[in-house]
Structure formats: structure tokens, C-alpha cells
């Protein structure tokens, strides 16, 4: 039974036009599509979602990057150079966000950040959702 103009029984996977696709651990600029004059953008973000999702889905899970931030359980320092950032920054893991791929502007800024930093981000996200997660000894 056909259920769409192209026929076939299953909805086609939505493939975004944006290429290249973002990889987990990379830093990309985020902007409001169609509003280049917004004074607050673009803002950098770390891609946290899995690469299968990043390649096939039309959205990505990102962690916003701020230039400063209080030390705390859900903030992860991002040293200058990591992922291509030009200054010491802070990942606000409590502000984890899912964005359509067309919110991503330029990127990646550099190579993906290291696995230790990604592990620290994962711990901070778990704390943000209420888990008690000590730093590894």
C-alpha cells in the first residue's frame, strides 16, 4: 500500500542538506537560521550526540559553550585550543539542547576534543539530570 507521493510503505529517513555532518566531540557555531543579524549569534557548541544520529538524523544534541562560568558539578572547563576554541571557555552541561541541523553554521572549529573531556561532559550531564556522580579517583 502506498502512503506517500513516492510510494513505499515506510516514511523516508529525513536527510539534512547540511554537509559535512558534525561528529561527536566537534565544536560548531550555532546560529538562528534566517536571522544573521541577531547580535548574540553565532554561539559555539560541542556536539554530544552519537555519530550514527549525527549522520542520519536531522538534529543534533549539543552542549552550549560560554566564555566564562562558575565552577560547579555541571560545568566543564574547556581549555584554549581544545576543539579549536581560541580562549579558555566553559561547557554548560545543564543546558544540553537538541537542535535541528540547520542551526549549525560553520564547523568544525578544529579536531574533536579528547575522550577524557567527553567523559567529563557525560558525567556533568548525568549530574544535571540528578545523578550523583563523583569524579574518578
Amino acid at each position, binding site marked *: 500500500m502506498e502512503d506517500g507521493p513516492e510510494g513505499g510503505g515506510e516514511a523516508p529517513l529525513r536527510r539534512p542538506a547540511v554537509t559535512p555532518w558534525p561528529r561527536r566531540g566537534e565544536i560548531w557555531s*550555532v*546560529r*538562528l537560521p534566517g536571522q544573521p543579524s*541577531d547580535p*548574540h*549569534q553565532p*554561539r559555539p557548541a560541542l556536539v554530544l550526540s552519537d555519530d550514527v544520529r549525527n549522520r542520519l538524523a536531522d538534529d543534533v544534541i549539543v552542549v*552550549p559553550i*560560554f*566564555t*566564562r*562560568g*562558575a*565552577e*560547579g*558539578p*555541571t*560545568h566543564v572547563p574547556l581549555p584554549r585550543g581544545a576543539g579549536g576554541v581560541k580562549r579558555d571557555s566553559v561547557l554548560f552541561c545543564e*543546558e544540553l*539542547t*537538541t*537542535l*535541528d541541523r540547520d*542551526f549549525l553554521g560553520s564547523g568544525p572549529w578544529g579536531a574533536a576534543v579528547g575522550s577524557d573531556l567527553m567523559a567529563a561532559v557525560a558525567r556533568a550531564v548525568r*549530574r544535571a539530570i540528578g545523578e*550523583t*556522580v*563523583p569524579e574518578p579517583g
Partner: protein
Amino acid sequence: MLSAKRATRVKVGATLDPDLVAAVDLYVAGNPGLDRSTVIDDALRLWHARQQELAMERQLLEDAGRYDAERSGWKTVRKEAVKRRFGARP
């Protein structure tokens, strides 16, 4: 034989309040399968949860009202993203 989890544990010495130790021993005696280590693990988890909670409070209070330009930028992005994701659905 030690399980893998048990093998990664650390043995420490500590000087504790004798009344608390007696309370732990009483609890362990009434609950077969438990030992002092299990109870002290639980106590430390609770302690760490409280420490994390306090640190979270400090972080949020320290951040309140700061980084306004960056926050406002992200809020705008998030609002637009949410509008797209949920706004058009019945």
C-alpha cells in the same frame, strides 16, 4: 574468589565515632549479607550526594544574572528550536 567489582575496591583505615560504629554493627547483625563496608559505602554516597547538591547550589547562585548576553543568545536559539519541534504539532 574476589569479584571484579570487589577487586577494584580500596581498603582504608579510619577513626570513627564508637556510637556510630556500634549502630552500624547492630544494623549489619540484623541484615544478613551486609557488612560494615556496604553500610559505609551507602553513607559515603549520601555524603557525596549532599556535597554535589551544595556545589550545584553554589554554581547556580554564582551564575545567576551573569553572562547575560551569552545566555540571551542561547535562550533565543532554544526558543526557536522548541517552537519548531513542538509548535507545529497538534
